[in-house]
């Protein structure tokens, strides 16, 4: 089994920011992602309890290094001031490189 190094981008943000993020993915032809609801605390206080619209989500995307930078740059530029959002990158190994863009 050989694992090819690639990147995992993890974004934690308010649920109403999800649409914007998926739009950015589409713009850069990032087709795969995984997401789920979480609760969390950050600089904007406790989130994820109460109204549906107040929930937090995590979005995870296996992504090539080149696209990573474009996507992160656009998210940071267009969303960081107005939304509760946090992101980080980690190194992972995958089996087949062709599956992820």
């Amino acid at each position, binding site marked *: 089994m050989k694992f090819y190094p690639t990147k995992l981008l993890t974004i934690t943000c308010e649920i109403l920011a999800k649409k914007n993020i998926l739009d950015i993915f589409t713009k850069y032809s990032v087709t795969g992602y995984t997401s789920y609801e979480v609760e969390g605390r950050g600089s904007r206080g406790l989130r994820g309890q109460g*109204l549906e*619209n107040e929930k937090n989500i995590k979005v995870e995307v296996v992504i090539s290094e080149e696209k990573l930078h474009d996507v992160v740059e656009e998210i940071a530029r267009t969303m960081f001031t107005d939304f509760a959002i946090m992101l980080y990158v980690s190194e992972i190994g995958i089996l087949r490189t062709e599956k992820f863009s």
Partner: protein
Amino acid sequence: MDFLELIQSNLLTPIVLFFLFGIITARIKSDLKIPDAISEFLPIYLLAAIGLHGGIEMRNTGFTAMLAPMLVAIALSLLFTLNHYQILRRLGKFNIFDSYALASTYGAVGAVTFSVGISFLDNQGVSSEGYLAAILAVLEPLAFILAIFLTNMAVSKQLEEKKKSFGSMESKIDINSGETRSNLKQVLHESITGKAIVILLGSIVIGYIIGENGFSSISIVFDELFTGAIVIFLIEMGIIAGQRLGDIREVGLFLTSFAIIIPTFNGIIGVLVATILGLSVGGSVMFGLLLASASFIAAPAVLRHTIPQAKPSLYITSALGITFPYNIIVLLPIMFTLSSFIHNSESINLFHHVTNFLT
């Protein structure tokens, strides 16, 4: 029953008491909470029930009676939204984004408030016109569309001014105004396909088609369980409102007053206008409530995307933490007293004159 008795008898209904209970629950930091799936389902259920009921009634009364109230409601809603904006921007000194967001939050309608109103009237043994559900559906997206349109206009103007000073940024601004236009189209689509409107309109149509007969097999679920379902939902609404109470400091004195005075003003105008238009005692109360209510479920969903620069803590907290409790506990009985008074007393003559004059 005079007004004080009424406010007291309204305070002491299960709906209001369980709402207050929810607030207390949140304040003492209890871990009580209605599971998400239930509190997400209940508004859908309530709107389906309201819609079915409205549709069935419209089958009896026809569409023509609806026209005038609908158009007047639309006009008032737009007028009020603009009025809110002026007050917030000039008197309140809010920035342009917060002003538009708040203006439309209070220009829009609250489906939960409407449900409570229906239940309140039920409790008083009074009915209301079925087509009010249709007006609810039409008003819901209206104020947002106006606010977003105006915000986009304002932002474009700002950008154009900047454009004049920095000639080099042209390309970027063009992209932005392109985004703006597509945004508006998207918002229109999203507003009209939003779940509240879809279930409400769908149920009105279905209610209209099936009538009393077709409804009988599901009336136990969509009619008899209604008040109990609202009670459960209001526990959760109370909990959330209670959690928001701490943020009222952030809201400030100006907005707190706004959140009480504006609904009162809009609501009373609504009751008076509806009475002139010939609506029943209950119908006039519901018409007033539509205009008095602020949106706290639909608003964040729309405004976070369309005016992301506005602070949600302002518009959610004031609408849910202040206006909603005020509306269902205080304003509803006020409007009911007013409506009963002008419908029953001799003052009705005055209105007849006005009506005759207008038609």
